[in-house]
């Protein structure tokens, strides 16, 4: 019997964007009926590689073989007809269409919609039975949860006869239990002979579900190994190119006075949606309160209120003094004056101005600081540049060039610019949201150390993260938010991901 030909084989794929070599001579073989993980840091070239496979980019050189046959993929139509389906990180669904309408979008049979819909309904039922992919075909997308929406994306691909499924960071938006469910579905698809490529930066997912794993670093494929024959720290080392500490070293917290006291906080947004519901908590000096939860359950609004740019009702006390939550003077400036520093969740939208240089970003929010002024009217740009250069040195920002625009730094270095700016203000309270989102492992280690160091100086820290591992390893206390409410507080030593996962999904434990 001849050797089975691989479902996908890439030979010598290279792709450059200008001077940046995003993919360098990449070769990979994925056997049918397997789950193949591709892991690497942000910017390692994973997404570029998949975009080439899906026809969004054309490779500068190299060949693609599908089921042993050399295939040209000039656009996504060609990819689909070659049997490749893609589930994007950000879903491509029409929010106000039903599941069924989304599934047939673009592959309607004839002029009239009805026959296509009927046909799709039948087929969907079949697919649902075959792969345990249960969704209500008549539900409107905006009314169903993220996990369900993702299943619709998978159905869309299967409906288009995909034999090869590419999933790009599929668990970023899911709760742990939803992720488990997704993995069950993927397992089922594998049993039915489908080939799956899973792109992720989470080592745990790779270990849990893949058969083989390829590691990418700086555009190159550094290794392809059988998952059973490797372990997380080895993979991390391959990703970063050096040994990494996956565990955070920290001494027990020594909590002091209450720094921040939040009582019955409520936020209703402009659409009238009640985002934060009666939230109360406090943070003491020298401790880290971690807020866990799936994105979109009120954590962002909570940070915005504390950061001074979201209107709320309730009481917040900082060092025992009330904070004005509604007046004209309630803004980011007044919060900074009260000793609150804020590393926002989204550095591209809030924390940085991408077209500003690093030095302009270092002054951001603190541009009224006296030491950044001269003659009373003008900003002392030279002083800011100097200050920035020193901060960049202390935080090991690369390249250490204050004149470079923020957009030209990597994610990790951008985040270091923000973290340096906020932490070096020596705040009484640090708000820090998604501190390591889109940040490479090396920088994660560094940023975590800075957060612990600030805590050990006796500062209060509010940490919001969707990464449970991060919450578990950094926090001294953990609060879980679901649907705008705090579902409960736990101590990291006395809980586990299963319990937190249930709370994140809104399931109240017996002890809560």
């Amino acid at each position, binding site marked *: 019997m001849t050797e089975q030909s691989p479902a996908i084989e890439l030979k010598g794929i290279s792709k450059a964007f*200008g001077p940046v070599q995003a993919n360098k001579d990449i070769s990979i073989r994925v056997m049918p009926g397997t789950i193949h993980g591709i892991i690497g840091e942000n910017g390692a070239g994973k997404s570029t590689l998949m975009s080439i496979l899906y026809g969004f980019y054309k490779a500068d050189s190299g060949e693609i073989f599908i089921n042993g046959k050399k295939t040209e993929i000039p656009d996504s139509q060609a990819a689909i007809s070659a049997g490749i389906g893609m589930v994007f990180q950000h879903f491509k669904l029409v929010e106000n269409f039903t599941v069924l309408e989304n599934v047939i979008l673009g592959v309607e049979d004839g002029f009239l919609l009805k026959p296509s819909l009927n046909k799709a309904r039948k087929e969907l039922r079949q697919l649902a039975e075959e792969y345990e992919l249960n969704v209500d075909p008549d539900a409107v997308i905006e009314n169903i949860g993220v996990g369900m929406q993702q299943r619709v994306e998978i159905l869309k691909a299967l409906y288009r006869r995909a034999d090869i499924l590419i999933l790009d960071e599929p668990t970023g938006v899911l709760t742990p239990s939803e992720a488990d469910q997704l993995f069950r579905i993927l397992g089922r698809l594998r049993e039915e002979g489908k080939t799956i490529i899973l792109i992720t930066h989470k080592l745990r997912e790779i270990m849990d579900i893949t058969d083989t794993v390829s590691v990418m670093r700086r555009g190159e494929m550094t290794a392809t190994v059988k998952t059973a024959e490797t372990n997380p720290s080895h993979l991390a080392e391959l990703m970063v190119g050096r040994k990494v500490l996956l565990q955070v070293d920290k001494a027990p917290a020594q909590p002091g006075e209450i720094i921040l006291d939040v009582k019955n906080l409520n936020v209703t947004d402009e659409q009238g949606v009640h985002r934060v519901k009666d939230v109360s908590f406090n943070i003491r000096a020298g401790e880290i309160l971690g807020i866990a939860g799936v994105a979109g359950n009120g954590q962002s609004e909570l940070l915005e209120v504390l950061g001074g*740019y979201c209107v709320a009702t309730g009481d917040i006390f900082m060092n025992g003094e009330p904070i004005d939550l509604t007046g004209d003077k309630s803004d980011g400036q007044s919060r900074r004056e009260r000793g609150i520093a*804020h590393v*926002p969740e989204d550095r591209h939208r809030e*924390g940085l101005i991408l*077209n500003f240089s690093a030095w302009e970003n270092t002054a951001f929010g603190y541009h009224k600081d006296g030491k950044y002024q001269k003659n009373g009217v003008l900003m002392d*740009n030279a002083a800011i540049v100097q200050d920035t250069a020193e901060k960049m040195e202390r935080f090991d920002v690369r390249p250490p060039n204050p004149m470079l625009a923020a957009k030209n730094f990597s994610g990790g270095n951008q985040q270091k610019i923000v973290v340096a700016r906020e932490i070096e203000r020596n705040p009484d309270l640090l708000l820090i949201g998604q501190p390591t989102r889109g940040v490479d492992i090396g920088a994660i280690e560094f940023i975590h150390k800075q957060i612990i160091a600030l805590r050990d100086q006796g500062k209060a820290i509010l940490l919001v993260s969707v990464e449970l591992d991060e919450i578990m390893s950094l926090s001294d206390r953990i609060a879980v938010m679901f649907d705008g409410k705090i579902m409960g507080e736990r101590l990291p030593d006395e809980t586990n991901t299963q319990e937190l996962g249930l709370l994140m999904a809104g399931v109240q434990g017996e002890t809560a």
Partner: protein
Amino acid sequence: MNKMPNWADTILVPLLSLLLAAVISGVVIALIGHNPIYALKLMVSGALGTSTNFSYTLYYATNFIFTGLAVAVAYHARMFNIGGEGQAYIGGLGAALACLYIPWPHWTLALIGGGLAAAIFGAAWAAIPAYLQAKRGSHIVITTIMFNYMSYPVVNYLLNGPIKAEGMEPATPSFAAEIALPNLSAILGTFGIAFSDRGPANFALVIALLACVGVWILIWRTKLGYETRAFGESESAAKYAGINPTKIIMIAMLISGALAGMMAINNVMGEAERLVLNAVEGAGFIGIAVALMGRNHPLGILIAALLFGILYQGGAELSAELRIPREMVTVIQALVILFTGALDNMVRMPIEKLFLSLRRKEAK
């Protein structure tokens, strides 16, 4: 990584756009039966040939500097102020009222008083659209256009009634002779430089140059400018930093309106010495092209304003000399605006690609 060096972005691209516009203009001129090379010569000599002609060029350029700066300041706050035309017209009304009804003892005081009045009137005309944008979310492009149209009947009514001079013409009386601004020949004369006194260029040019410096300091050296640019780049980030959007929109638009209004120092106080019908003559709109071409930087605006001054004056000479209709000259001006503004990317993209491939070759 920048796609191409700075000099290519700021000099090469506009220059090539200009060249393209010139080539197509040449085709147009050839099509109506004239020699394009000769036409170009006429235009250049018409704009720069004699110091009288050059004086006209500088006069137009002064107008465009004010309106160009006005567009630029608003643009840094991501406000597209299309209302320069109306703001300059109302600014002219302010200048005229100040010059007609206050007996200034000396031209310097008239300059300050009249200039202030022009700025305040222009700012006031921008204030309402600004407020509607900041508080009600009415789009500034729509409202400033509407305010242009509203400025015309307001001033026309006043020029035909309450402040009309004796006679047939819808215009104010002439200002007192003592408060006339010195013209460029007088200013240059004090330095011993001979310059024609038959052209309209006047002391307003000095104010325009000062305004360039002032805007540069404001935008790149002050907290207000920093906040304005930050707001213009990212509203969400500005909110995070505690920058008040309403305040920035209002202040940027008030300064913008004031700059547009200050054009009156040139056309009303410096040249006509009275307010006439349609005094702005489209300079408010040219300001948009000038700001676009000048990349919203005062130095770029200065250069672009000079270029448009040359186009204006040279174009006028061209139409007089060749007896081609004035509209043909407008076509040429429009081509320049089209290529330097709207079709910017058409030139930019190939050049970017060129630089990228050059760089890749270097890397290899």
